[in-house]
């Protein structure tokens, strides 16, 4: 059942409409648990599009196993997705920095308030992100340390490769996940892949994990996989590789690969002079879980992240 959860008029003959698709058993008692899958807050992150499609496809195929409510929200920022824009067109702030929203604020803040209203009360919410157009990520769940006790047990069941428990920061208090967690709606943030692309194997892995969580919640009684055991780390184990110079980044290790301390990761080169401007070496033994996809770099651009182990 497709429902509109928020809308706004655009100036010339167009309506912005945020929709969800609700899947529920034929006979509803009112006591069903509810799972919400959210994606598309950033219009250039598309990995979640496949996840929404595949989750709904599998549920429809075996609908007799559905014992609770699954709400799927594929496009929180529909204008962004349809215009290849990360943010909300015509609006300055990142959509994931305006939650819990404000009905007295701008149109975007109004929509954010409506979104929170619709999602609150879910027994579990999952917010799917896909890095950005610059960086490729392995399939991972990120948890703010303030919510660790509630979220980590669920995240471990999600069939994810890596769980990153990151430190709290005031600016992150305006994300969708923080806002929902703070009102008692457990929300996991899933990051995977790269912006503007879909990595089907990551999507399939995630949908497998969602079914495990649905079964744990009593929303699904069909067969599910045995979830992977994830690597779990805090900020202290993560090393950031930033460019010291501008140029073109040429990696020489694959993504999601173990490297040794001192191993050559890649070069920043200058195509005008045909020279190497900076050689990049691993600062530790570990796993390259983030690797730059977009070749042009400024001084400071993130080239990768390595999880020391």
């Amino acid at each position: 059942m497709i429902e509109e959860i928020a809308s706004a008029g655009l100036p010339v003959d167009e309506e912005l409409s945020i929709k969800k698709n609700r899947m529920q058993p034929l006979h509803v008692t009112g006591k069903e648990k509810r799972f919400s899958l959210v994606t598309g807050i950033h219009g250039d992150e598309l990995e979640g599009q496949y996840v929404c499609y595949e989750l709904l496809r599998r549920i429809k195929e075996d609908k007799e196993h559905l014992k609770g409510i699954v709400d799927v929200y594929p496009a929180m920022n529909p204008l962004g997705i349809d215009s290849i824009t990360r943010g909300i067109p015509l609006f300055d702030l990142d959509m994931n920095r305006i939650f819990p929203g404000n009905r007295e604020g701008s149109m975007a803040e109004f929509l954010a308030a409506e979104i929170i209203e619709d999602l609150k009360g879910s027994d579990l919410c999952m917010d799917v992100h896909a890095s950005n157009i610059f960086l490729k990520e392995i399939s991972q769940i990120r948890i703010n340390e303030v919510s660790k006790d509630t979220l980590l047990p669920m995240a471990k069941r999600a069939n994810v490769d890596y769980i990153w428990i990151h430190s709290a920061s005031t600016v992150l208090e305006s994300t969708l996940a923080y806002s929902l967690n703070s009102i008692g709606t457990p929300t996991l943030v899933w990051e995977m892949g790269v912006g503007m692309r879909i990595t089907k194997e990551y999507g399939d892995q995630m949908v497998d994990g969602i079914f495990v969580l649905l079964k744990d919640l009593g929303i699904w009684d069909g067969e599910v996989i045995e979830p992977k055991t994830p690597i779990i780390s805090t900020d202290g184990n993560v090393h950031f590789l930033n460019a010291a110079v501008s140029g073109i980044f040429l990696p020489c290790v694959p993504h999601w690969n173990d490297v040794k301390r001192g191993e050559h990761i890649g070069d920043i080169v200058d195509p005008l002079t045909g020279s190497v401007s900076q050689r990049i070496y691993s600062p530790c033994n570990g796993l390259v879980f983030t690797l730059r996809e977009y070749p042009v770099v400024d001084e400071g651009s993130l080239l990768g992240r390595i999880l020391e182990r």
Partner: protein
Amino acid sequence: MKRKMIFNMKSLYRDDLRVYGYEFGSGSPSACIVGATRGNEIQQVFICSQLVKRLKELEAQGAINQGKRIMVIPTINTFSMNIGKRFWPTDNTDINRMFPGYNLGETTQRIAAGVFEEIQNYEYGIQFASNYISGDFIPHVRMMKTGFENVKLAEKFGLPYVVLRNPRPYDTTTLNYNWQIWETNAFSVYTCDTEKIDMVSAMQAIEAVLVFLSKVGLLYYNAPEAGVSEVIDESALITVKSQKAGIFIPRVDISDRVEAGTVLAEIINPYEGEILEEIKAPQAGTVFFMQDNPMILSHAVAFRLI
């Protein structure tokens, strides 16, 4: 006057990014004035250019007080300005949401860190800012309520209003907020426009800054007696929102006094020309903010009244 490069960064194919500060007087770091942090803040860079010109004249007249140093940074974001973008050219991040910065972090964090390193020890910090909701304002001084804000000082600009804002999480990475946390008395000065030059409010802002510098003892400046500022809390402003979307035809101007029921704007059907909505003042007040786009969305903030 001394021109000092406070930050420099090389690019792949573009010229270097250079951030300059113009210093007047010598001695303790007393007042720092920052113009554009975004590429479309044309009014802000213009105001700073005129301030540099005036301070140069005043310095030549011996008007800068001994032992006091004033710095003006017209812009920290030439790269966006030169290609007509508001935010950083490659990753679209906002330098004014990267403070205090991180010198080992991403590009705009490094720019923020490099600039903040130079400007964090000033006694007074003045930024010509623009709002995330695009529109025209009555010239005013805006301060974040961090616990360090000093309203009495803000009144010394002599602008009609001092607006106090409760910071939201996304405000905590702005220059104004971080200046205050690092114990600089920080003020954001808003004029009527951003992307084009409004000469009247630009001159008003320049005068206000010179009056302020004079009143806090940095400058001998024979200013006419400034007006008295009214201090208001942003939450006390009356927000007037649109119900419909269409072409926005304002019927009032900034600073106009309106009565309850006054038509503030009409929203016109863009195909048939009919009035879809008359936006009316819910109560009497003064027009403090007005959105400046000729088109309007529904649920948009069209006006704020005092």
